[in-house]
């Protein structure tokens, strides 16, 4: 399943986009992986870094203009006005853990579905059946979790 899908994906990436190969896509610019690839990553990183720089600048400016008069009462933790009891960094409800596990499974499923969406027309019926089998296995897992009561918030 995976090998033909990856092979088709590589073929797709190397091939110029044209109306005949891609449904719904009109004639567009040819995508050259090598030359644009680095530029794109440079763009991504400069956006991420500039997002961080902006906030740091704002926080610095606000540090310059705002007052600072810390008192022990102010720096204590808020707990509806009474002195805090115990540490909040204690073990916590397992509910969230189960959902995180389920999320991981379905996120990985999405990772496998992403390349398939681009090539499922070339793969045809065989690819469709194989992907549905893969999805069915995961849905079976979801049904199992459901029946076991993992989705109930008790």
């Amino acid at each position: 399943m995976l090998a033909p899908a990856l092979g088709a994906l590589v073929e797709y990436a190397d091939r110029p986009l044209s109306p005949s190969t891609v449904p719904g896509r009109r004639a567009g610019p040819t995508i050259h992986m090598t030359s644009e690839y680095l530029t794109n990553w440079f763009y991504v990183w400069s956006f991420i870094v500039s997002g961080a720089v902006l906030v740091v600048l704002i926080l610095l400016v606000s540090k310059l203009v705002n007052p600072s008069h810390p008192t022990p009462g102010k720096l204590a933790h808020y707990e509806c006005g009474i002195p805090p009891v115990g540490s909040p960094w204690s073990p916590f409800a397992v509910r969230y853990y189960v959902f995180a596990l389920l999320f991981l499974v379905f996120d990985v499923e999405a990772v496998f579905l992403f390349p398939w969406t681009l090539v499922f027309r070339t793969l045809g019926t065989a690819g469709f059946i194989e992907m549905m089998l893969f999805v069915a296995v995961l849905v079976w897992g979801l049904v199992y979790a459901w029946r076991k009561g993992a989705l109930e918030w008790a």
Partner: protein
Amino acid sequence: MDLLLDIIRLVVSVVIAYVVVFAAALANIVFERRTLAFMQDRHGPNRVGPHGIFQSVADAFKMMGKEDFRPALADPWIFTLAPIMVMIGAVAVQLTMPYTKGFTPADLNVGLIYIVAVTSFTTMAILLGGWASRNKYSLVGALRSAAQMVSYEIPMILALLIVAMVVGSFSLDAVVDAQADYRWIALYMPFTFLLYAIAAIAELNRGPFDLPESESELVSGYGTEYSGMRFGMFFLNEYAGMTIMSMVAVTLFLGGWHGPFEDALVVGGVAIVPLVWFLLKTYVLVFALVWVRLSIPRLQVDQLMAFAWKVLIPLGLLNIALTAAVMLWVPRWRWGLFVVGWVSFFAFVGLLDPILKRRLRKQRERVPVVTS
């Protein structure tokens, strides 16, 4: 020379991203308060500037001057890192946004995956901020928020996959191209759009899914210990997120910048009319967000998770299977998708309410109401 042009283009794109984040956040706060006030038949903020439009600018300056302290026991670095990270997502999403005809900062060929990746910065930031505060309310708020956001991320990805299937590419420019001539994806796949919209509202932590900061239960959720400008960053991100999510939705489902008279007015190589269409569609969706928040009461936490895992995810998978089948075996697949999309849309809207009501009635019968 080419390099210089690229750098200028990059700087301009970053500045536009900054401007969109701030203008959107400040405008949305006033827009939401005034719209809610209008719908509830009251005045709302109307003192600062004409019709109160400068209210949030005044609020921003006020927040700048507020004391920004960190609780003594909180983790010093992560407590500051969280508000920085929360804004990275808002700025970075706009890298692939096709604002108008011929202007996309960078058309990544993995645009759809990139959007999913950078929007999860917000989840991480909320989780880090809540944990680093060392406050019980913050921690519970952060965990709830993370559980909610990861659960609703899956239906969102499942809806994005449909777009990738129909368009045959992950590039957002290709998605917009494929929707020319009013072949908007939302018009022939309304069910997918509905799935995406529900998941996006949950991702934004907005009503009816605003549990992470439900004031009646958790004080202020993950933001309980934050004050001053560090709190302001979370707040700004939340309101900028309304516009940014709507922009993504418009690009993917409502034809992006397409509309009539696309080439009517071009100033300096930038087509103005498509930009106007893009912003107009975006603000229709922002208005819808406000409307939904006002109309639908907040869900319970168990209902929230059950809705994602028991309703949206199975339906999302079914939708993918149906779409693939139609595209493979129906000769005029766009019409096939049109029929399937509208039938499933009306089936979902029509059946959801009675089914939920019946389940609720059964639940009430099982657990007798205690009266004194």
